[in-house]
């Protein structure tokens, strides 16, 4: 028996390199494991957040519920990186991108197998969970 208190560090699994281990939104990573990408919605005022937040700045409530990111968003913009920061060298080349779902936006990566010549600003895309070669989890955008 150990007296050590268990620390919930699920968020360490998010992205190629995670810079955060402790957050009240740790369930986000469990949802990724289950194949879902989730945001939060304030149960008091109804404000919708992506990325998810534990606290609502509008009404100061911390009573939040999860919702699934579903359907399609429009590609707002993207960029293909030729160089990467320390820790991401193995991923190059990759593209970071932003999708607009209307009520919220999602920042992530384009899926590796989306041909570059088929990517245009304004196109419809969907968000999918992705397991990285190093076992970490993130999500990527694919043509809808």
């Amino acid at each position, binding site marked *: 028996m150990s007296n050590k208190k268990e620390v919930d560090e699920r968020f360490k699994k998010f992205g190629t390199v995670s810079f955060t281990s402790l*957050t009240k939104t740790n369930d986000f990573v469990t949802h990724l494991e289950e194949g879902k990408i989730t945001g939060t919605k304030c149960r008091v005022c109804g404000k919708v957040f992506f990325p998810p937040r534990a606290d609502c700045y509008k009404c100061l409530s911390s009573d939040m519920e999860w919702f699934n990111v579903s359907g399609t968003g429009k590609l707002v913009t993207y*960029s293909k990186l030729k160089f990467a*920061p320390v820790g991401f060298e193995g991923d190059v080349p990759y593209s970071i991108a932003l999708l607009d779902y209307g009520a919220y936006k999602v920042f992530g990566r384009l899926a590796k197998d989306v041909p570059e010549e088929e990517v245009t*600003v304004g196109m419809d895309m969907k968000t999918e969970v992705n397991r990285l070669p190093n076992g970490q989890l993130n999500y990527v955008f694919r043509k809808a």
Partner: protein
Amino acid sequence: MGKIAIIGVGQTAFVRNYPGSVRELAFDGFKEALQDAKIKTTDIDASIVCSAPEYDKQRSPAGVLAEYLGLNPQPTFYVESLCSSSSMGLKLAYSLVKSGLHDVVAVVGFQKMSEISSAESQERMGRGADIQWESPFGTMMPAYYAMYARAYMAKYGATSEDLALVRVKAASYGQINEKAVYRKAVTLDMFSKPDDPMSGPVASPLRVGDCCANADGSSCVIVASEEKAKDFCRKPVWIMGLGSATTAVNMAGRDLFTGLSVAQASAEQAYKMAGITPKDIDVAEVHDCFTIAELMAYEALGFARPGEGRDLIRGKETYKEGSIPVNVDGGLLSKGHPIGATGGSQIRTIVLQLRGEAGEMQVKDPEIGLVHNIGGVGLYGNVTILGR
């Protein structure tokens, strides 16, 4: 309370691998400002030290610099807003003097970026963005600005050549600025030759030539009350307008991708405070960390309508002889971008312009100048309007 003046400015040359320590680097820029203002360290009531701390080994640099610069026992303040730290420092100096708390305040900006590798520096800069939700995707500054460039080009039909023209202009002034880190010419040709380093891809659509030069450097701006300014200074330059704003750190929390909302909001405040309009600006320094940033700045500052910034660069209107000269000191692109020192250096350029002391870079008889200084990817905006 009376007006608030800038009575002295200084900066080091911006260089790669400054051969000295952070305190020695800061001393060089500070000394030039003191000599410019013709004052002594004992004339200074307080100092404001500005930098982005993640590049330094030293924790809490303000206290260390205050001692090295001979500013004990006066109080010192540490101000950080990434790349706009020293513009923020100027605003704090204005507030301290305007409130009557202090009469003469030194704003010291510095950054020594060469102590870490370029990849490490990209990683640290990237952490100026949202480390919880975006950095895990492998973000870096050029890629964020590239996303703005992509959205801007898609909406307005601007081209990579329009962006390259901004760099060509910057380099033409970097060549004649002895303080600039990049002193060579850049031609459009270089961008179209695949084997030329300028054309190398960084983060599409941005190429090597679209990105500013990292550098080591320091800057110093001495701020004084109207009374002190009249005692000390032949040619005070007055702070007419100040604006600053913030927005969501993550891209997902923003609505505008063809311009920086913080620049628009800061400009509006600064123009209102100064009681002028964009047409009144005779010379400007804008935060051209990437070429796209300068085009967006033209529009945020009201020099061009949305989407028409490229007409200014194509028509050479932002050259020294044009209708609104911008970054005629080489800008961040060629003069260099030592994060914490950058705002102070931009302010120095405008002060020298308004005094008619900008040498070969001098614009014809300017009366009002503007500084646009951005922190992070449009996370912090600062616009400062100066007049003589």
